[in-house]
C-alpha cells in the first residue's frame, strides 16, 4: 500500500499562486427577486380567465357579453387578486400555466452572474453590487452580505450535507430579511428569489478542498480569503417568455429520443429514396405545406426556417393568435411595406370618438398595431456581414485581442440562439427583409455555412497554444463551453425581449377585446350597431380564440393542415375558421366566465344584474380526473395508466383480469373452469373450452378455434398497471430512499413554527409515538402548557380540513418524505406493513437517522411538491448506518386486451360489432384493385402522378406511406398501381390506420398467426410463421409460474415482460446448476452467456427478441450482483488492487479531472480515475460534441451523477478510516470538477 501523501502546514502553504484558475476565481452570489413579475402574471391569468368563450344561444351570449363589457374592470380586479394569491401560495409564477418557473430562475441567475451581468439588465430591472463602496455604507446591504458570508463559512466547515439543507437555510434567511424589513431595497419582498447560494457554497467547498493537506486553520484562512473577495449581487429581475422557456414533457422526451436510433435504416433509406422523385415531392408539398403556401399566397413567400416547423412547433404556440403577427413578418420578408399608423391628429372629433370605442379603424391600422408587437429580428445579411467582419480579405480569422475573441463568441452565441429559438418556436428572429424573396433559401444556407466555418475556425483557434497565450485563453477553457455559455446568455436575453413583446401583444388583444365589448353593448341597443360590430368582432375572435386556447388547438391544427389525420389527433373543437352559419359574431372575446369556477368570480349581487341566471349559463364542464397537469411525471410508473377495470371497451364483457370481449348481438361469453371461456351464440350453440393464456389473453388455440368457426377476432391492446411485485431486502437508509423516492412527497418547508426562532420562541407542540395492538405506529400531536393558540396556529381546524400532516424523512434527503395525515384527534397512523413502518422500532420510535415532522400543508409547490409549515419535529435515533428491512413494491406493466369478435356472416348477417379495431396481428387487408374513382381532385391527381412514379420504382409501400396529402384515397391508389397486395414494408401502417379496403382476403394462414407475430411489427416486413417447436417453447414459458431466485430479483425486473423474466430465471437456474449458487457474479455471467448462445441460434423473430430482451434483464441482474459484490470485504480487496494501478488514464484530462486530483494522494488519484472510468462505462459511449453537443453535455451530466453514487463510501461499509478518507478525497475532486465544469 502506498503511503498517503503527507499532510500538514507545508502542504497547506502551497495554497496560493500555483492554481490560478481555482483560487483566483471570484465567487459571485446572486439574489435576484422575481417578485415584480407576480402582478403581470396575475393580470394575465385573470384576462385569460375572463376571456373564456361563452356558449349558448346567440341572444344569451349577447346579453352576457354586453353585461360583462360593463363590469369587466370589476371582474378583472377580482380575478387578478385571486390569481395573485394563488401564485404566491404556490411559489410559482407559472402556476396558472401548470408549469414550473424553475427554468426562469436558473436563466435569471445565469444572466446576473455573467461577467457582463450589469450590461444584460433590461428595462425595469435593478442590479446592486452589495460589496460596492456605496452599498457597503448601507446597513441593510451589510446585513445581507454578512448573512451570505456566514452561510458560506458554515458550508466551508461542512455543516450542510447537501444542497437541500442549504436551500432551507436560504429560505430562512429570506424570511428573516423580509421580517426585518431590510430586503425591500434590494430584493423586494423576496418571495420569488432566484439565487445561486447553494451552488456558490459548493464552489467554495471545492476551492478549499482542492488544496490538499491544509490544517483546519489553513482551511479557515483560505475560506476567509475567498469569502472576503466574494461578490454579492442583488436585484429585481424580469423573466423571459413563458411560452418558450419551459422544458415541456415533449422537450424532455425529444431530448431522450435524440440519443436513440429508433428509426430503422431501412425505413430511412426508403423514404429518402422516394424524395428524389419530384412528383412525389410535389404531391407531398401540396399537403404538407399547403397551409404555409396558402399563407404565402397572401404574403408572397414562406419564411419559416423549416416550413413545416411552423406547423409542428405550433404545439406550443397559441397559433391562431399569432398567425396574423406571423403574417406581418412574412409580409416584411416578402418586401411588402409595413402598415403605418394613420395621422389621428388630422381627423375630425367624431371620428376620433368613434376610434376611442374601437370603431373606424382600418385594417392597415390594425396591422400597424401588430407590427409594433413583433419580435426584434436581425437581417440575415447583417449577421453575415458581422461574421465576415471577423475575417481578413484573405479569409483568415482576424482575432487579435481578447475583446475580439469575446466579440466573436458573442456573435456566434447570439446567432445560434436566434436560429435555435426560431427552429423551436417558429419565432422570426432572423429576417430576410434585406433581400429578394427568391434569394431567401440561398441566404439561409449562406448563414449556416458561415456559422459552420466560424465555429470551426474558433475551435481551432482556442486550441492553438500561441493563440491561448496571446488571447488570455485559460488552459481549461474550450470553445464548446464558451460558445454554449454565450448562446445560453443570448437565449435568456432574447426570451426576455420576446416576453416583453408578448406582453405588448396581449395588451393589444385586450384592447381589441374591450373595443369589441363596446360593440357588443351597442348591439344590445340596436341591430344596426351590431351589424357594424361584425367585422371587427370577427377579427378579434380570430386572435382571442388563439390566446385563450392552450396546446390543443395546435395539435388539432396540425391534424387539419396535415391532411392526414391520425388515430391520436385531438378533435379540432376550437376550429380554425369563423363559423359562417351563425351569421353573427362569435363573441367569445367579450370575456365572461361561462360558469362558476374555482376562483369564485361571481357577478356580485349588489350590482343587481340578471346576467348570470343558471338557465343562461353554459353548463360547467366537470373536471375530468387526470386531465390536469399530471403529477406523475418523473415517477417510474405513470399514474394515468389504467387498471384492468379501466380498460375502455364499451359494452364488452370481461373474460379475465386483463381482457374483455365485444360480441355480436345475441352472443354472450362466460368464464369457465381451468382458465377457459365459453361463447354461446343466439341459437344456443356453444363454443366452449376457449383457453386463456396465463396473462388472461385468449390463447392461440382459442383464436384458431374461433377462426375455424368463421369468427373474425381483432385485438386492441393497452398497457395497464399490473399487480405490484413485492420483495424484501435489507438496505441502508440511502438505499431505502432510492427505493421509495417515487412514493415520497417533495417538501418545501416555508416556515418553522417549532424552532427556537425570534419570531415565535415557542415550543408548544410535541409529538409522542406509540404502537397499537395491530402494530401500527400512532403519532400523537399535542400542545403543551398554556400556550394554546399563542402561535396563531389552529391545528385542530387544519386537521379537520385534512391539512395537518406528518412527514417522515431521512437525513440527507429531507426534501422528500413519506406523508401521513393527522386526523381531527391529532393522531396520524403509520400502518403496520407500510414502507415507512420499517423505519420505526417496536416502541414506535424512529430507529434511523431521520425526522418525523408535523406540519401544516400550504398547498402545492411549482414542482408538484407540498409547501409546509413545520409545527413539531422529532429526530430519529440512528446514525445513518442502520440496516432497514425494506419492503419493496415494484410496479409492473401489463398488456390488456379488448377482443372484438365478428360473427360468421352466414350466422348473423350484418351482426358485426362496430368497426373492428385494427390490430397488427391481423394482416393488411389486401388493397382493392379498383381504378381511380371519378371526380378525382387536382391534389389527388397530383398524388396519382407521384404514386405512379413510386410504383414504377416498385415502392408502393413507400409511396403509400410517404405522401402527406395521400391519405385513404392515395393509399388505395398506390397499392393498386403497384399491383397491390399491400404486403410491402409499410403494410402495417395500413393495418393500424384501419384503412384497408373491403374485400380482405383472410386466408387460413392468418389463423396461424400468434401473439408473438404481433411483436414483429412492420419492421420485419410482415407476419412471420414460427416453427411448432418455437411456439411450444413460448407456450410453455407462458404457462410457467414466474419464480425468483433470491438475490437476483429486483425492481427493474418488473418493468420487463413476463416471458423475459421467466427466461432469465431459467438461465440463472441453469447456471446455478452448473456453477453452484455461491458466486453470483459468475452465475449471471454464465446466464448471460446462455442467453447469447440462445439468441444466436434463434430462427424466428419472436425467439430472437425473447433472448435479446432476456439479455437486457440479465444485464440488470449483473449490475445488481456486481453492486452487491463490491460491498464489504471485497471492497477492501478492490481498493487494495489500487496499488497495482496507475492513475494516468487518458480521460484524467477530462473536465479538469487531473488538475483537481493532482494535489491528492496517489490512492485518491487512482480512485478518482477508477470511479470516473466506471461511471463512463456505465454511461455508455460519449456523443460527439460536434454532431451532438446537447447529447455530449447530457452525457457528462450523467457521468457525474453516476460518479456521486459510485464514490459514496456508504456503498462500501467495511472500509477502514483511511480508505474512507480516499473516498472523501475523491468526492472532493468530483465535487470541484462538477461545480466548475459541468453545467447544471
Amino acid at each position: 500500500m502506498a503511503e498517503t501523501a503527507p499532510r500538514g502546514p507545508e502542504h497547506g502553504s502551497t495554497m496560493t499562486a500555483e492554481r490560478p484558475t481555482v483560487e483566483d476565481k471570484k465567487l459571485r452570489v446572486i439574489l435576484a427577486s422575481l417578485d415584480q413579475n407576480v402582478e403581470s402574471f396575475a393580470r394575465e391569468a385573470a384576462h385569460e380567465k375572463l376571456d373564456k368563450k361563452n356558449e349558448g344561444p346567440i341572444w344569451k351570449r349577447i346579453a352576457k357579453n354586453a353585461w360583462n363589457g360593463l363590469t369587466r374592470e370589476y371582474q378583472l380586479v377580482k380575478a387578478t387578486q385571486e390569481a395573485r394569491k394563488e401564485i404566491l401560495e404556490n411559489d410559482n409564477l407559472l402556476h396558472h400555466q401548470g408549469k414550473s418557473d424553475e427554468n426562469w430562475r436558473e436563466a435569471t441567475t445565469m444572466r446576473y452572474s455573467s461577467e457582463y451581468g450589469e450590461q444584460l439588465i433590461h428595462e425595469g430591472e435593478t442590479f446592486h453590487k452589495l460589496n460596492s463602496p456605496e452599498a457597503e455604507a448601507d446597513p441593510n446591504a451589510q446585513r445581507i452580505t454578512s448573512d451570505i458570508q456566514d452561510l458560506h463559512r458554515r458550508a466551508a466547515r461542512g455543516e450542510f450535507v447537501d444542497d437541500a439543507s442549504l436551500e432551507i437555510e436560504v429560505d430562512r434567511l429570506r424570511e428573516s430579511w423580509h421580517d426585518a424589513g431590510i430586503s425591500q431595497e434590494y430584493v423586494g419582498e423576496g418571495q420569488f428569489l432566484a439565487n445561486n447560494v447553494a451552488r456558490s457554497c459548493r464552489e467554495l467547498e471545492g476551492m478549499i478542498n482542492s488544496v490538499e493537506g491544509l490544517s483546519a486553520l489553513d482551511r479557515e484562512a483560505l475560506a476567509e480569503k475567498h469569502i472576503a473577495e466574494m461578490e454579492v449581487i442583488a436585484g429585481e429581475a424580469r423573466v423571459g417568455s413563458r411560452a418558450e422557456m419551459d422544458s415541456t414533457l415533449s422537450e424532455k422526451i425529444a431530448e431522450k429520443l435524440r440519443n436513440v436510433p429508433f428509426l430503422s435504416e431501412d425505413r430511412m433509406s426508403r423514404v429518402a429514396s422516394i424524395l428524389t422523385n419530384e412528383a412525389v415531392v410535389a404531391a407531398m408539398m401540396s399537403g404538407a405545406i399547403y397551409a404555409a403556401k396558402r399563407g404565402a399566397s397572401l404574403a408572397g413567400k414562406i419564411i419559416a426556417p423549416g416550413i413545416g416547423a411552423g406547423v409542428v412547433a405550433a404545439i406550443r404556440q397559441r397559433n391562431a393568435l399569432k398567425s396574423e403577427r406571423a403574417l406581418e413578418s412574412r409580409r416584411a420578408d416578402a418586401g411588402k411595406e409595413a402598415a403605418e399608423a394613420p395621422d389621428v391628429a388630422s381627423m375630425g372629433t367624431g371620428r376620433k370618438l368613434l376610434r376611442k370605442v374601437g370603431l373606424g379603424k382600418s385594417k392597415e391600422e390594425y396591422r400597424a398595431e401588430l407590427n409594433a408587437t413583433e419580435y426584434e429580428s436581425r437581417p440575415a445579411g447583417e449577421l453575415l456581414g458581422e461574421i465576415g467582419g471577423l475575417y481578413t480579405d484573405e479569409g483568415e480569422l482576424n482575432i487579435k485581442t481578447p475583446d475580439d475573441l469575446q466579440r466573436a463568441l458573442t456573435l456566434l452565441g447570439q446567432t445560434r440562439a436566434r436560429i435555435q429559438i426560431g427552429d423551436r418556436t417558429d419565432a422570426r428572429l432572423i429576417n430576410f427583409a434585406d433581400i429578394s424573396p427568391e434569394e431567401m433559401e440561398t441566404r439561409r444556407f449562406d448563414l449556416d455555412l458561415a456559422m459552420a466555418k466560424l465555429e470551426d475556425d474558433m475551435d481551432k483557434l482556442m486550441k492553438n497554444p500561441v493563440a491561448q497565450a496571446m488571447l488570455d485563453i485559460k488552459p481549461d477553457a474550450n470553445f464548446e463551453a464558451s460558445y454554449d455559455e454565450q448562446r445560453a446568455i443570448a437565449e435568456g436575453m432574447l426570451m426576455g425581449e420576446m416576453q416583453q413583446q408578448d406582453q405588448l401583444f396581449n395588451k393589444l388583444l385586450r384592447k381589441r377585446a374591450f373595443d369589441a365589448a363596446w360593440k357588443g353593448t351597442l348591439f344590445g341597443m340596436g341591430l344596426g350597431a351590431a351589424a357594424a360590430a361584425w367585422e371587427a368582432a370577427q377579427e378579434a375572435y380570430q386572435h382571442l380564440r388563439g390566446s385563450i386556447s392552450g396546446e390543443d388547438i395546435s395539435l388539432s391544427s396540425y391534424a387539419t393542415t396535415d391532411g392526414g389525420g391520425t388515430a391520436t389527433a385531438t378533435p379540432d373543437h376550437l376550429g380554425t375558421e369563423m363559423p359562417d352559419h351563425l351569421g353573427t359574431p362569435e363573441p367569445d372575446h367579450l370575456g365572461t366566465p361561462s360558469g362558476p369556477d374555482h376562483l369564485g368570480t361571481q357577478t356580485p349581487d349588489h350590482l343587481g344584474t340578471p346576467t348570470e341566471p343558471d338557465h343562461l349559463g353554459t353548463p360547467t364542464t366537470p373536471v375530468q380526473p387526470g386531465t390536469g397537469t399530471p403529477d406523475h411525471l418523473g415517477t417510474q410508473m405513470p399514474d394515468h395508466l389504467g387498471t384492468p377495470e379501466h380498460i375502455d371497451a364499451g359494452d364488452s364483457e370481461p373474460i379475465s383480469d386483463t381482457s374483455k370481449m365485444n360480441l355480436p348481438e345475441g352472443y354472450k361469453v362466460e368464464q369457465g373452469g381451468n382458465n377457459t371461456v365459453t361463447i354461446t351464440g343466439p341459437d344456443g350453440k356453444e363454443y366452449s373450452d376457449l383457453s386463456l393464456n396465463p396473462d388472461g389473453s385468449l390463447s392461440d388455440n382459442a383464436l384458431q378455434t374461433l377462426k375455424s368457426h368463421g369468427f373474425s377476432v381483432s385485438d386492441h391492446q393497452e398497457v395497464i398497471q399490473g399487480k405490484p411485485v413485492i420483495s424484501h431486502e435489507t438496505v441502508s437508509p440511502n438505499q431505502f430512499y432510492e427505493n421509495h423516492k417515487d412514493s415520497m412527497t417533495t417538501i418545501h418547508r416555508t416556515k418553522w413554527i417549532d424552532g427556537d426562532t425570534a419570531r415565535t420562541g415557542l415550543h408548544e407542540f410535541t409529538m409522542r409515538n406509540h404502537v397499537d395492538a395491530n402494530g401500527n405506529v400512532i403519532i400523537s400531536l399535542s400542545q403543551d402548557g398554556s400556550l394554546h393558540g399563542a402561535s396563531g396556529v389552529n391545528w385542530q381546524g387544519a386537521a379537520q380540513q385534512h391539512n395537518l400532516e406528518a412527514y417522515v424523512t431521512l437525513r440527507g434527503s429531507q426534501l422528500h418524505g413519506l406523508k401521513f395525515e393527522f386526523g381531527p384527534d391529532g393522531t396520524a397512523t403509520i400502518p403496520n406493513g407500510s414502507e415507512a413502518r420499517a423505519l420505526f422500532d417496536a416502541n414506535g420510535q424512529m430507529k434511523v437517522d431521520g425526522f418525523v415532522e408535523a406540519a401544516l400543508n400550504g398547498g402545492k409547490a411549482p414542482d408538484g411538491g407540498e409547501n409546509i409549515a413545520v409545527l413539531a419535529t422529532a429526530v430519529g435515533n440512528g446514525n445513518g448506518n442502520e440496516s432497514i428491512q425494506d419492503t419493496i413494491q415494484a410496479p409492473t406493466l401489463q398488456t390488456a386486451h379488448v377482443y372484438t369478435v365478428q360473427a360468421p356472416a352466414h350466422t348473423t348477417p350484418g351482426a358485426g360489432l362496430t368497426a373492428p379495431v385494427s390490430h397488427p396481428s391481423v394482416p393488411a387487408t389486401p388493397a382493392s384493385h379498383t381504378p381511380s374513382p371519378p371526380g378525382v381532385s387536382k391534389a389527388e391527381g397530383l398524388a396519382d402522378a407521384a404514386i405512379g412514379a413510386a410504383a414504377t420504382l416498385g415502392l408502393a409501400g413507400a409511396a403509400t406511406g410517404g405522401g402527406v396529402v395521400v391519405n385513404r384515397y392515395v393509399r388505395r391508389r398506390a397499392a393498386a398501381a403497384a399491383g397491390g397486395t399491400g404486403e410491402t414494408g409499410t403494410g402495417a401502417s395500413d393495418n393500424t390506420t384501419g384503412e384497408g379496403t373491403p374485400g380482405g382476403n383472410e386466408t387460413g394462414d392468418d389463423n396461424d398467426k400468434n401473439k408473438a407475430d404481433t411483436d414483429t411489427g412492420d419492421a420485419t416486413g410482415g407476419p412471420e410463421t414460427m416453427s411448432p417447436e418455437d411456439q411450444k417453447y413460448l407456450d410453455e414459458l407462458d404457462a410457467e409460474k414466474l419464480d425468483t431466485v433470491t438475490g437476483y430479483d429486483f425492481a427493474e425486473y418488473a418493468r420487463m415482460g413476463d416471458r423475459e423474466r421467466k427466461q432469465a430465471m431459467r438461465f440463472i437456474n441453469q447456471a446455478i446448476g452448473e456453477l453452484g449458487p455461491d458466486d453470483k457474479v459468475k452465475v449471471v455471467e454464465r446466464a448471460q452467456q446462455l442467453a447469447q448462445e440462445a439468441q444466436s441460434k434463434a430462427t424466428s423473430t419472436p425467439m430472437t427478441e425473447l433472448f435479446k430482451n432476456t439479455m437486457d434483464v440479465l444485464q440488470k441482474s449483473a449490475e445488481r450482483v456486481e453492486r452487491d459484490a463490491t460491498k464489504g470485504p471485497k471492497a477492501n480487496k478492490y481498493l487494495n488492487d489500487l496499488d497495482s494501478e496507475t492513475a494516468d488514464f487518458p480521460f484524467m484530462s477530462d473536465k479538469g479531472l487531473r488538475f483537481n486530483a493532482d494535489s491528492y494522494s496517489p490512492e485518491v488519484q487512482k480512485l478518482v480515475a477508477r470511479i470516473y472510468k466506471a461511471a463512463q462505462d456505465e454511461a455508455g459511449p460519449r456523443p460527439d460534441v460536434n454532431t451532438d453537443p446537447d447529447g455530449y453535455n447530457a452525457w457528462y451530466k450523467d457521468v457525474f451523477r453516476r460518479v456521486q453514487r459510485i464514490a459514496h463510501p456508504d456503498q462500501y461499509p467495511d472500509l477502514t478510516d483511511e480508505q474512507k478518507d480516499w473516498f472523501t478525497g475523491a468526492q472532493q475532486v468530483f465535487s470541484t470538477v462538477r461545480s466548475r465544469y459541468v453545467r447544471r
Partner: protein
Amino acid sequence: MLQGSEAAAKFIDTLIDAKLKGTEIDSDVRARLHGDLLTRLEDQIIRAILSLLNQQQQLELEHLVDTNQVSKIEEYLINQGIDLNRVLAGAMVEFQAAYLGA
C-alpha cells in the same frame, strides 16, 4: 437518432451539394455544417412525431426509451396509428424545401 444513418447522411449531403453547386469548402467546415443540419433535421422529425402523440402516449414512449426497448419504438408508434413513413417524408421534404426552395 440519425447520427448513424447513412441514408440521412446522404440526404444532407445531397442538400449541401445542391447548394454548393461544385464550390469546394474545407472538409472540417463541411463536417460541422453537415452535423448542424443533421441535428436540425433530426429535431424536426422528432417534433413531428411527438406532435402526433398525446401525453399518455408520450409517457409510454418515454418508458420504452428508459427501459432500453429502443427496438420496439417503431412498432409502438405504428401501433398508435402513426404512419412513420409519411411523417418522416413530410419532415424531410419540409426541411429540403427550406433550403432548396422546393
